[in-house]
């Protein structure tokens, strides 16, 4: 692939990442630079065709992402659309985003990545990705490479002109898809405005219109907002992620909106299921629900044994 140094072999990177090995920071730098070039050409609204498997929040739960490929098919045999929140919270944000970015570079028309609210400098400093980068690489350089690249991620996807896919939800500033296309997205996610709303907002099943959050920032959107948006844009469904669901997914507003959640046993302690949504060639939707990968437990025990070996008991502590 032009632009990537000849020393970087994508297929080799991918096979190493499937084994959860880290890439060298110089390789990450080159890959992020190349990904920026690729993403720059994408519209804020990427039009794709079914069949495609849609994935919600992963949050660095690497083993569970591999589980998705095991049950849903590997790239490029299965087309994938990832709805953002690849990093933070889980133990393996770097491995997760590295693999996704390499897959995107290798199969650009079969893998699509859009931006979640965690693909941001601000949020990743508080929720783990920054710390993980500093710890695993000894300095935050790779965090800069990744977060600079995040500024180029697209904001939404439309499947077969019918299903609108976004990380968070709708915005009071956006009535038609064309209004998304004119957002200047190549920047850090701002605190307010349509770009913030697309990655932050949540549906509210008890309301019809937009409401302000009691937190003082952010919106929820109701049934009539969804109905109107779909009518104006001649679409049938909104598919988004962003909210934890114990069952792995949630369907609302008379089947006009669904939430897909792809991090099972979230934060390694919620005990929830996860899912991916398989959109078929005729637009049919099939939920593929899955549980946490067994490797998580094996890894946890391994870590505990290491700590016990080092003389500390990670389970019991003399708290006061």
């Amino acid at each position, binding site marked *: 692939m032009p632009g990537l140094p000849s020393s970087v072999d994508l297929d080799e990177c991918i096979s190493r990442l499937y084994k959860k090995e880290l890439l060298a920071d110089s390789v990450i730098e080159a890959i992020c630079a190349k990904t920026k070039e690729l993403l720059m050409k994408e519209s804020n609204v990427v039009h794709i065709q079914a069949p495609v498997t849609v994935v919600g929040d992963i949050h660095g739960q690497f083993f569970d992402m591999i589980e998705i490929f095991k049950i849903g098919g590997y790239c490029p045999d299965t087309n994938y659309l990832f709805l953002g929140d690849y990093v933070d919270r889980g133990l393996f944000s770097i491995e997760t985003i590295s693999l996704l970015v390499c897959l995107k570079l290798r199969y650009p028309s079969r893998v699509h990545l859009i931006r979640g609210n965690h693909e941001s400098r601000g*949020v990743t400093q508080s929720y783990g990705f920054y*710390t993980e980068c500093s710890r695993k690489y000894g300095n935050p350089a790779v965090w800069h490479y990744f977060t600079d690249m995040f500024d180029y991620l697209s904001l939404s996807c439309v499947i077969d002109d019918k299903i609108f896919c976004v990380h968070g939800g709708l915005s009071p500033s956006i009535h038609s898809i064309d209004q998304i296309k004119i957002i200047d997205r190549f920047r850090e996610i701002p605190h*307010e405005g349509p770009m913030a709303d697309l990655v932050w907002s949540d549906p509210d099943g008890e309301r019809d219109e937009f409401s302000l959050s009691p*937190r003082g*920032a952010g919106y929820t959107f109701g049934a009539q907002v969804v109905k109107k948006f779909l009518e104006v844009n001649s679409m049938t469904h909104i598919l988004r992620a962003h909210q934890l669901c114990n069952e792995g997914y949630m369907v609302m507003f008379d089947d006009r909106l669904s939430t897909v959640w792809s991090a099972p046993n979230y934060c390694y302690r*919620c005990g929830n299921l996860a899912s991916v949504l398989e959109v078929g060639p005729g637009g049919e939707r099939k939920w593929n629900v899955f549980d946490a990968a067994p490797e998580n437990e094996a890894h946890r025990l391994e870590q505990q044994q290491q700590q016990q070996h080092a003389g500390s008991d990670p389970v*019991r502590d003399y708290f006061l």
Partner: protein
Amino acid sequence: MAANGVETTKAGGTQGTTSRNGAWNVTTRKQPILKAEPIEALSNELGIPIPEMIFGDNIVSLTHIKTGWSLEFNARDALDKVSKTEEGMLQVAVAEQWKKERSHQDEVKQVVKPFDWSYSTDYKGSTHPGEALGAWEQTTQERFPIRTDLLSRPDPILFFDTVDLYEDELADNGIALLSVKLRVMPERLLILSRFFLRLDGVIVRIRDTRVYVEHATNKVIRQYTAKEGSYDHVQEKLRQMRENVPEAFRDANKLAPLLKTVEDMTDVFEVH
């Protein structure tokens, strides 16, 4: 029977231990987060939206076996103590700027019913009297101390557990977490229910309820300590201490000594 004559049972997410003199039992139950329907029911019952991670089936309970008296910690009762009015309501750091810049000020006026979305609770557990007489009585640490000297001894820990009750990431403006830790030693036990709030750019708040029992007595000593500090103040102190600031901000144990105590009370229940 496990070592030291303490009985430990474990079945389907439930674990328990009885002190060797047969007087006290501690039981925990850990289950996955609630499903959509129970969440809706709980939300309707309490009149507030439910935190993102709600461990509604989790329980920690301390029981006096002879009388059936118990002190229980559960998410429902803790959330019932969250303010359902605008009183004391916090706003995220960007709220002022957000309101000024918001481009749709005329169209969106409807504010979701106000409540304390930081889920701050002064929950001290739920008391079920069973056959017991008596009541909680206000006292002091001087009269009924939680013996940290005895608790600091490396006595064997016969039963240990941590049980989360709820957690919310405040739409990525920080964290609100209520969780309960407990440890049972041969002579005594300690339960710590901790509410931890970090609202980025605004405030850090820790509200601890400690429950202490000497197995040989019929007294339950309970201390409630509320601490707060402004985010900027805590950040400055962490920098002075050359701490890794983002990491320290996730660790309530590191933050607690940097906060100011705003409330501290002790009460005791003599069960008989």
